């Protein structure tokens, strides 16, 4: 039963990673941009959610505000900065998006102050559901898993059954082709970028009641998100899903069982340090192993 609960916990972390990674991987796959500022939109979403929730008291309005806030900020950044970077090499993109991160963090500090804001939640949010006989699980975390699953399904439908999806697939396969089809590329890029930001806003909203809403919260999760998309295969949404599940599960189950396992195998003073190091580095170890075996990730966009 405990194992089952830990699996659900791993799933919930995977859901957060997937919400962030799917947008990031699309932006990379289609525009070829390494976007270090992706986490900044997640932070903007969380701040919008917390601010709206404490002003209006409405949970769902907070969600709406998070999505709209991230989308608008994304639109602003895309039209003013990002579209000048698409033709540049990765290095310029890294430095420019890093600059956006610096700027956004400081902007939020100036606007909202340094104290992390609270995110009030409704009564039902703190309740429990019996998912299986004898296994009570908090609604807050189920909601997270559900959001992740819904976005995964929606993205599958979008990519496989719509014209936009067709363009996205074509774009991930071959940039020149899409241009040759006479599609308005600039608009497609803006759309994809803002879509990624919407997913960030959603993630920020979902995370606000469970995590500290603070400056720099984006960078804390950004590196793991990059790990996820590289493990999954850059540019592939299926890959992002696989990567998020793998990293989320390894992290969750690793934290749950590595210390107990090592305690039995090794003397206490060695196992403590070793398990701590192993747990901290687990995502990176998984990535290194995956890349050594499959240099292009688990499910790369181009077969």
């Amino acid at each position, binding site marked *: 039963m*405990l194992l089952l*609960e*830990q699996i659900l*916990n*791993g799933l*919930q*972390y995977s859901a*957060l990673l997937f919400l962030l990674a799917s947008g990031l991987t699309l932006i990379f796959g289609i525009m070829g941009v390494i976007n270090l500022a992706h986490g900044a939109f997640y932070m903007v979403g969380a701040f919008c959610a917390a601010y709206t929730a404490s002003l209006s008291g409405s949970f769902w309005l907070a969600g709406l505000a998070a999505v709209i806030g991230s989308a608008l900020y994304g639109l602003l950044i895309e039209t003013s900065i990002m579209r000048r970077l698409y033709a540049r090499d990765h290095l310029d993109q890294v430095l420019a998006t890093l600059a956006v991160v610096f700027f956004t*963090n*400081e902007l939020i*500090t100036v606007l909202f*102050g*340094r*104290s*992390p*804001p*609270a*995110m*009030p*939640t409704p009564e039902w*949010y*703190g309740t*429990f559901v019996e998912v299986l006989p004898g296994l*009570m699980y*908090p609604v*807050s*975390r189920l909601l997270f898993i559900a959001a992740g699953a819904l976005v995964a399904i929606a993205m599958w439908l979008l990519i496989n059954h719509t014209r936009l999806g067709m363009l996205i697939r074509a774009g991930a396969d071959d940039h020149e082709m899409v241009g040759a089809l006479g599609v308005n590329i600039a608009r497609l890029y803006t759309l994809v970028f803002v879509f990624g930001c919407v997913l960030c806003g959603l993630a920020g909203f979902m995370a606000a*009641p*469970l*995590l*500290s*809403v*603070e*400056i*720099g*919260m984006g960078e*804390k*999760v950004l590196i793991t998100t990059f790990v996820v998309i590289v493990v999954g295969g850059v540019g592939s949404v299926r890959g992002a899903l696989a990567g998020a599940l793998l990293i989320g599960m390894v992290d*969750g*189950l690793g*934290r*749950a069982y590595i*210390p107990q396992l090592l305690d039995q195998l090794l003397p206490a003073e060695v196992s*403590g340090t070793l*398990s*701590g*190091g192993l*747990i*901290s580095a687990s995502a990176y170890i998984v990535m290194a192993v995956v890349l050594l075996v499959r240099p292009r990730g688990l499910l790369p966009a181009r077969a």
Partner: protein
Amino acid sequence: MKKLLVGTLLAASCVTSLLAQAQDPVRIGFITTLSTPAGYLGEDSRDGFQLAIDQENGKLGGVPVSLLVEDDGLQPARAKQIIDRMSLDGISLYTGVIFSNVLAAVVNTATKDGFYISNNTGPSSLAGKQCKPHYFVASYQNDTIHEMAGVAANELGYKKMVILAPNYQGGRDALEGFKRTYKGEVTEIYTKLNQLDFSVELARVRSLAPDAIFEFHPGGAGINFAKQYGSSGLSKTIPMVVPVFSMDERMLAATGDVAKGMNIVTLWNPGSENPANQAFVKAFSEKYNRVPTVYAAQTYDTARLIGAALKSVGGNTKDPAAFRQALRDVKFDSIRGDFAFGKNQHAVIDWYLLRVEADANGKLVQVPVQTIAKSQVDSFAAECAL
């Protein structure tokens, strides 16, 4: 290129000479963390110190002072470069550092020709054998707060506890400190530094069903932990004992109602009847429009301690031996109650247990429960040869 270099040089030299112009007042170098998510700790510390100066119209203990605040960005390397510049500039009195890894980068330079008076952290490495004549800790020795948490847990009658902390030096010290005084049965869980999600650890806590838990997660991780502890429903059945750094006043505001019932071990009782304290809380709230945190309180106390020492040497810091003696014998009205320096020049103070409760307006406040210890000397003082 040339222009750039000359410009940079000029700008750098302008700034340094601006600092140098203020010859008259005693200059105090205040290196603290103002950026990063932990920026509010530095902000409150700085504001607490500034308040003490403002209350005396630019003086401390009747001696004119000027405060030079700089942001270390929580990077030891950056703090090192700041202290180098300040020290070459002739500053000899320092305080402000929040984090022990930053302090480590600063302390050697600061105490070579000058004095460092810690307003927040007091790592064990500098409290025992390696204690330094020009290094004073006006706040507390780091391990003591966790030892006091152990004492509090004993007194609250908890027989079986789960204790959690991130796997880094401060976290390991926290759990060791707690175990030093706690008499019941413990299970240790180490978390990752900057961990976001604690569901896995909380599931383990639930399955272990302890009487209470002790956790040490300063900053954002502490808010994450408390929010998730609340949303997992554990806060209703298993009480928490935490050092104040896992749940300061601002974290309390960010965490919300789920923090109700938390036991907080602290070195400062915000509701204390002590007149100096009453005056401080009132003045701080009026000036900055927010409730002071423990960081503001300790740093305010540090400023007044420096003031008392400056007063007894008549503002002359040129004679290190006399100034050191003045600091060792310092007498001032601490807002924390009785205050003295121990053998290793670390503060000997009282410790309190508070509990988070809602007041008449539904606002969360820390209500005093009991005094855990009076004039507590830290565990490393005996090893110090000063």
